[in-house]
């Protein structure tokens, strides 16, 4: 069962495509948002039924795309780009700094569940490198000092 607001958005999405399966990616995003940022077998089955495909099809899709998660991410999912332009201006060092600061490696979540880190391929902000996404927001020309401030700010919000 989805929350009423998400269900409304899902119905709208379904109305925009000629075939229900076409709406799979947008619906998975909504379902994931509705379930603390990750997908469980129960959610997968529900989405499969909605889109008139098999759960296996949905699993195949989920594992192909990096944005769908099978493990619960932190409340703040910190995505640090280390692709070519970011790497030229300190992206790799920024990732290392973030890992040290939060005491976890990329791919992991802090014990309190507040932060998780992911190393990203190019996120399309190369002229404003190094770039970071936290949940849905971009942060650009991020220095280690800016990262520290951001982490502190998020920690107090959490």
């Amino acid at each position: 069962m989805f929350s009423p607001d998400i269900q409304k958005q899902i119905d709208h999405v379904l109305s925009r495509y000629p075939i229900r399966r076409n709406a799979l990616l947008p619906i998975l995003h909504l379902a994931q948002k509705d379930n603390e940022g990750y997908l469980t077998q129960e959610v997968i089955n529900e989405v499969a039924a909605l889109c008139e495909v098999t759960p296996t099809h949905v699993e195949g899709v989920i594992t192909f795309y990096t944005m769908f998660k099978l493990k619960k991410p932190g409340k703040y999912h910190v995505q640090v780009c280390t692709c070519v332009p970011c790497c030229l201006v300190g992206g790799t060092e920024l990732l290392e700094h973030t890992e040290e600061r939060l005491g976890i490696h990329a791919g992991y979540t802090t014990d309190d569940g507040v932060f998780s880190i992911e190393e990203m391929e190019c996120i399309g902000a190369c002229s404003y490198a190094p770039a970071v996404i936290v949940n849905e927001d971009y942060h650009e020309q991020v220095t280690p000092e800016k990262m520290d401030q951001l982490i502190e700010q998020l920690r107090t919000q959490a």
Partner: protein
Amino acid sequence: MLEETLVLFRNIRNPNYDKSLKGYLASGGHKALKQALGMKPDEIVQVVKDSGLRGRGGAGFPTGMKWSFMAKGTGKPSYLVCNADESEPGTCKDRELMLKDPQQFLEGMMIGCFAIGCNHGYIYVRGEYWPSIKSLNAAIDELYEAGILGDNVYGSGFKLDLTVHTGAGAYICGEESALLDSLEGKRGHPRVKPPFPAVSGFNGCPTTVNNVETLACLPYILTEGPEAFKAHGPENNAGTHLVSLSGHVNRPGVYEISMHASIREIIYDLGGGIRGGKALKGVIPGGSSSPVIRADEIDVNYSFDGLSKIGSMMGSSAMMVFDEDTDVVQLLHRITRFYNHESCGQCTPCREGTHWARQILRDFLSGNGSDRKLKRLHRVGQNMSGTTVCALGDAAAFPIMSFVSKFPEEFKNYFESTSPIAA
């Protein structure tokens, strides 16, 4: 001193610009759309052909010609799908258009839909681009509220719906046939062509895939005419284009330039030169897949033909600049790691080749390079070129072949006997 040529960015560069529909209309927006609605679709296709517009997504294919390939009389709906997947490393131009002047791009999209007879257009935006997705959705809502989108666009009887589709993190979905599979609700695997999308695309229907910037050029082409557009570049390289400048320059950013500009002017005039007063070592001129060029090759036009003359390509107009202190072996390793990560795995030369190349480069970086391994690296690159379902195989091979041939001495520094680690 090179300056920007403002066509697509004319509103964006105005600090007082209001990007809402109201602001866009006040800036002269929808004049082209209304003009187009009074023309025959074929006439629009002809104007676009005359303008010399070439696709800004990477391949530079003539847009008008692409539209004319659309299968007719099939009894199936036709689709225009906009490629806003923008994931070629270095590229961040489409997001400027979607974030800062969404209505201009949407006007182009509406003109394109009318020209190819599409009643429901889809905009495939990469999933990470939440801010662009929100910006486009808000702009589309405004168009519906104003009664412009829907059953009767400006009273012309033309019915048009637009939908933003969110991708989910897969570089390969920028390749147009993989994008269509993804839009259909599947894994994004490139398709064997033919059939081309113009015959069998979205859900098996005739489909054109165009890049955001390509479509954003249409309002200008219609209102100012094909000749005005052509005048912004040398013969066969019409129009301005958006260059995403990144790396070791003082002023990285997205700039709009005419195709008359040279690479040197872009780096030194617009980009303010190399950071810290250092010397330039090289440039990856058109996204990470384009062959690298050395500092002594930058006095060419930054245009489709200018770059192909020196054995590279303009690709997505993403210019990555690196200085004298850059380790090119590390740089190539990072690029190769990207393609290895993004290979969809369908073709052996691409799946295995990107892996081998990455492995060999890692050997170099750990001080175990050798002449034999360098030759093997080159051979792996050769075996990936032209042997795969989609162009990702070539995209991975170009950097390998070009880095090895342009900077051989840097690879030799990593040969076993001379490597800093072995010594």
